[in-house]
């Protein structure tokens, strides 16, 4: 065979990992594949072939090889959780002093902010660890790992509403239609396994909340990138991946036989038509077969030790909870998945700062900290970047009536919020950036969402200006036409 053609047939197709079926023979292929199928095998067992990324990537030596984004949907209140300001306590119940608002735009629930009353943080704050990071009593577990974390306290964004805000921070644009960060990384860096997708997504919602945040699939969409880069949703149900289960009554041996027949008949077609797409199809059916084994193996936590499960808190065994998803995130990255997006909704406390916020923190505090500890004890934290944060912050002033403590709330606040990161080449025990004495506006070292994105890409060895995709005649990138790397937080 013409070597150039073979090369193109097999290797220029990024989806065609390992050796193609062409020229190997189905039986050999099948045996090759069954060896890497890894039913119940230890994670360190022979790895399936990697899926290569773009040839010119990484642009420079990466610090992080994979990302877990613990996305806090609904906008956690920076005012009550991380950004401690004693002046808020002093001014509690008083109107916002002059000079803080200046024609700023808020959601229609607030309308004009002038004259609104300051609301003090509802729980006590303390400094933690050697770094002395401020964390509220809402989050004791996160506070206990404060020295592992890097707090970005000067985040700001352009959007005041959830969907545009989340879209902006995850995909670089407020309007749906651009590839999300995970899709960019799957496209650029490929995957360290071909048993599982490069980009996995899981969702959960706080037990106590009834507010209607919705997980839109464009939060993990591939936009104009080929759809194979979109996030694959792992569900907290008996079918963790859509259509992963064979029909009832069809065991694995029969599925294998069926795939052998499909491959044999497809090879006849390939010899007749010589269409390389047929070779790709054979390979993709084989990967489907491997996923049918690797996904149940992934979700079988029976071999996890009790002390490990204990790190994630009591609801870790319950599929679909945030704790369970955090554990799955570790298991996914351990198996070579590039980007895991864990989304947890319920942070939208318009009238429940003194009620639902407690449930919300309880559900997420221990699992978030547990994940960091677990990654650390496995040596995975060094090259795994963990990001915790939402789409914007919440107003330092009250939404609701000061006399009705049960209904205290805070509205959307795009002008300042806090995100923290851990591992993956980020400096530990650091707080970066500052807001004013009311946590209202950023006054030092502002970090726009595009800057955060540029920095994340940098940690993964990518120049955010050079990872582009041409669509509609324009070279698009995650950071749109913006993005400055926050170099002082790089370890």
């Amino acid at each position: 065979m013409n070597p150039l053609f073979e090369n193109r047939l097999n290797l220029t197709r990024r989806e065609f990992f390992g050796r193609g079926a062409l020229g190997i023979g189905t039986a050999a292929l099948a045996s090759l594949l069954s060896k890497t199928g890894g039913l119940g095998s230890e994670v360190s067992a022979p790895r399936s072939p990697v899926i290569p990324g773009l040839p010119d990537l990484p642009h420079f030596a990466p610090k992080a090889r994979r990302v877990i984004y613990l996305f806090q949907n609904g906008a956690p209140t920076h005012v009550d959780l991380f950004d401690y300001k004693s002046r808020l306590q002093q001014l509690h119940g008083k109107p916002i002093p002059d000079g803080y608002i200046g024609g700023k735009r808020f959601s229609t629930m607030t309308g004009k902010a002038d004259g609104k009353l300051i609301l003090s943080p509802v729980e006590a704050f303390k400094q933690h660890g050697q770094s002395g990071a401020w964390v509220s009593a809402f989050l004791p577990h996160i506070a206990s790992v404060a020295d592992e974390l890097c707090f970005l306290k000067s985040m700001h964004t352009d959007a005041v509403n959830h969907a545009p805000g989340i879209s902006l921070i995850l995909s670089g644009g407020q309007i749906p239609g651009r590839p999300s960060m995970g899709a960019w990384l799957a496209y650029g860096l490929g995957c360290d396994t071909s048993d599982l997708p490069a980009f996995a997504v899981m969702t959960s919602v706080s037990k106590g909340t009834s507010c209607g945040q919705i997980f839109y699939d464009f939060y993990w969409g591939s936009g104009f990138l080929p759809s194979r880069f979109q996030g694959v949703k792992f569900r907290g149900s008996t079918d963790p991946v859509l259509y992963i289960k064979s029909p009832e009554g069809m065991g694995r041996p029969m599925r294998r036989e069926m795939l052998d027949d499909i491959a044999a008949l497809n090879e006849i077609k390939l010899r007749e038509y010589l269409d390389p797409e047929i070779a790709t199809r054979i390979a993709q059916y084989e990967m489907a077969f491997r996923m049918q084994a690797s996904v149940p193996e992934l979700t079988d936590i029976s071999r996890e030790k009790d002390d490990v499960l204990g790190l994630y808190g009591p609801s870790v065994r319950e599929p679909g909870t945030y704790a369970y998803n955090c554990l799955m995130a570790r298991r996914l990255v351990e198996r070579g998945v590039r980007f895991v997006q864990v989304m947890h909704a319920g942070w939208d406390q318009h009238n429940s700062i003194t009620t639902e916020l407690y449930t919300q923190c309880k559900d997420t505090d221990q699992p978030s900290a547990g994940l960091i500890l677990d990654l650390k004890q496995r040596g995975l934290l060094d090259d795994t970047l963990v990001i915790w944060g939402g789409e914007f912050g919440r107003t330092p002033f009250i939404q609701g009536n000061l006399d009705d403590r049960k209904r205290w709330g805070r509205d959307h606040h795009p002008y300042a919020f806090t995100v923290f990161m851990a591992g993956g080449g980020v400096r530990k025990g650091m707080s970066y950036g500052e807001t004013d004495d009311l946590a209202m506006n950023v006054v030092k070292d502002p970090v726009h969402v595009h800057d955060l994105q540029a920095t994340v890409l940098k940690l993964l060895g990518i120049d955010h200006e050079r990872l582009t995709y041409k669509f509609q005649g324009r070279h698009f990138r995650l950071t749109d036409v913006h993005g400055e790397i926050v170099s002082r937080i790089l370890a």
Partner: protein
Amino acid sequence: MRARPIALLFAVIALSPAEYESGSVAAEVHFSREILPILSEHCFQCHGPDEKSLKAKLRLDTKEGALGKRANGTAAVVPGNPKESQMFLRITSSDKEEKMPPEKLKKDLRSDQIELIERWIKEGAHWGSHWAFDKPSRPAVPLDPSLSAILNPIDNFVADRLRRAGLSLSPEASRAVLIRRVALDLTGLPPTPREISDFLADPSIDAYESLVDRLLASPRYGERMAWDWLDAARYADSNGYQGDSDRTMWPWRDWVVKAFNENLPFDQFTLWQLAGDLLPNATQEQKLATGFCRNHMINGEGGRIPEENRVDYVMDMAETAGTVWLGLTFNCCRCHDHKYDPLTQRDYYRFSAFFNQTPVTGAGGDPQTKPFVEVPTPIQRRSSERLDLEVVRAAKELAVFEQTKFPRPSDQPVSSSQPLKDLPKELQEHTAIDPAKRDAGRLEKMSVYWKTNDAAYFEVLEILRKSVNERSALLASIPRVMVMEDQSTNRATFLLSKGLYDKPLERVKAGVPESLAPSGTHEPTNRLGLAQWILSPENPLTSRVFVNRIWQQFFGIGLVSTSENFGVQAENPSNPELLDWLALEFMSSGWDLKRLCRLIVTSATYRQQSTAARELWERDPQNRLLARGARFRMPSWMLRDQALSASGLLVESADGRPVRPYQPDGVWEESTFGAKRYKQDQGEGLYRRSLYTFWRRIVAPTMFFDNPSRQVCTVRQPRTNTPLHALATMNDPTYFEAAMHLSAKLMTNSNLKPEGWLKRAFLIVLGRHPSDAEFGRLNAALDRYTKDFGLNPAQAEAILKPGGQSFLSPDSRAELAALTVVCSTLFNLDEALTKQ
């Protein structure tokens, strides 16, 4: 820390358009196809139409800018003399400071591009405009006596192009391949064995053409053509965004099917959808068609600023029209002048002004936001007429009754009646209202009172109350389709800084992009004028853009592969003469779409076999030169329809209400925290054509992989090949049940023996007979599975459980289960998934 295998990185070898040409003779460099794309890609960012980012006051997008003398006496380009052309000197400079494009832009020119520019300058630097912005002129049909296998002018263009590349058309595909290909292309459904054998046996010389005519006349044609239009029109059955309320736009979808089937000329099709409401004496149907514009998402999120929403909707309408008819990427101009195309931010807002005139305020998330039209189904219309009569009759009877119950002089109102005055105040008020005008609430209160006080009165009241209730329930269930309507006073449109609704700059008047409107032409002032301008023979884009999409539908890729973008950054057409010829032919035929489809599918180009020599796959992997027939995986909706049709499960019905077929449990619930529950249909709803599946915008139906999500206008469907697709077609109950149903159907046909089942199944799914090798392999599998299931009857029962109980006697169940697995194998073969 664990070591990870380092990804082996292989260089991607891709052919640039020029390279699939072998041994091409150096013809004169073509400015708009060869030079303009280089300038656009590498220079326009700083030397293009966007005035704000213009560097050194040098524009390379205009002839004056590039060739004109500059203040210092030099010129960027001096025809005939590269060495005196400042631009050439700068791109070839070895001085880092001098060199263009600047290193930091990372837009370096390749040496072949520099050579091309040098040749172009030497040849006289002939200038021209972007090809797509010039009106197409009818190219001469290439005539070459050596060309054979020509069936219509399409082939002349293709064969001529191939000849220049040292290639020729491939032979015609076999009839069995052809009928499957053309049936899927024109109706979205595979041919039946009967249709296949009739066609194979048809001795007439125009057997194929008659087949095409039959397919074009089938009502399934409209259903097939509608899918791509729905993707473009971002049609969905819910609003999108938070809340994602259900809407009732489906009568518009049914209208699209009908319009395709009736072959409504494309100019009318366009006019009605953009401006049907503005036509003189607009019919209900013409108004309904404007639902196209209103298919955009609606954001009902609490706290959203209405005006921000409204501006979003207007922009969406404008951008959709720009993409669908003009192939322009208008969205770039929301914030700034276009970097590449001669479109300004002003152009964008002038264009959006056409859509800025509806009374929509942007407030709330009502999925039936006015203006709308009510489109009752025929049954609803009949019921409504019946109920109107019933209400009138019942009201009359009540009036008569009340005349006696509350006596008063005939010229006095009922309120003057003494017996009424004795009643509770509230009841007096209700009674004072004409029975025909009493609403359900009043009637209810009256009923409650009289139930215990006057049985006869109660009875008469109840008749009216029930009729009124029934009528209001019916009226509420009549679908309302949001449509276009302009308010009487003109709403001012502003150029918005960075596209922000609250940052208006100067006021603009409605108008079309200046660079596309030849001076002196009549400027449109409203949507109707806009639609007429879009359809004007002077418009260089509309026909090209649309015929290109039809071509894309049949060949998997357009003559211009960037079907969403015909701007300067568009890919050059693979066969520009053919594109122009088709565009003009389409217009001069009176925008006759069926004729265009017929022209394409009866060409020798379309009818070629899709097998090819290895060298050709290597040289032209995307088949841009068309030296072979198209071969690509069908859209997922077509795969599902094929499985339903082949198995005999397909239910073809004219009921347009969206249906809810099989979908894994919990998909909607997970995305909406239980706010939206998926209530799967029973019976017919499971087996309707994919077109009628309920489209929830925030979580699209899971069975349609690789389909646009319908959130925004999309005119090019992605086509990928992933393991998730394999999982869907192997494990989705729709496909597996189809395999089972097909098996049972074959087994209950007493004329067939097991061997016959297999052969028949093969024919039904793949449209041809199996080879010996294929048959051998499948037959062995059938034997093996039959034995397996015979030994494990419980497994057979498990496999047949969904819907399988009613089929066949217990002793055939192992065979049925085995045949089911084999049929599932067939549905998953590359050939079954592919239109070849």
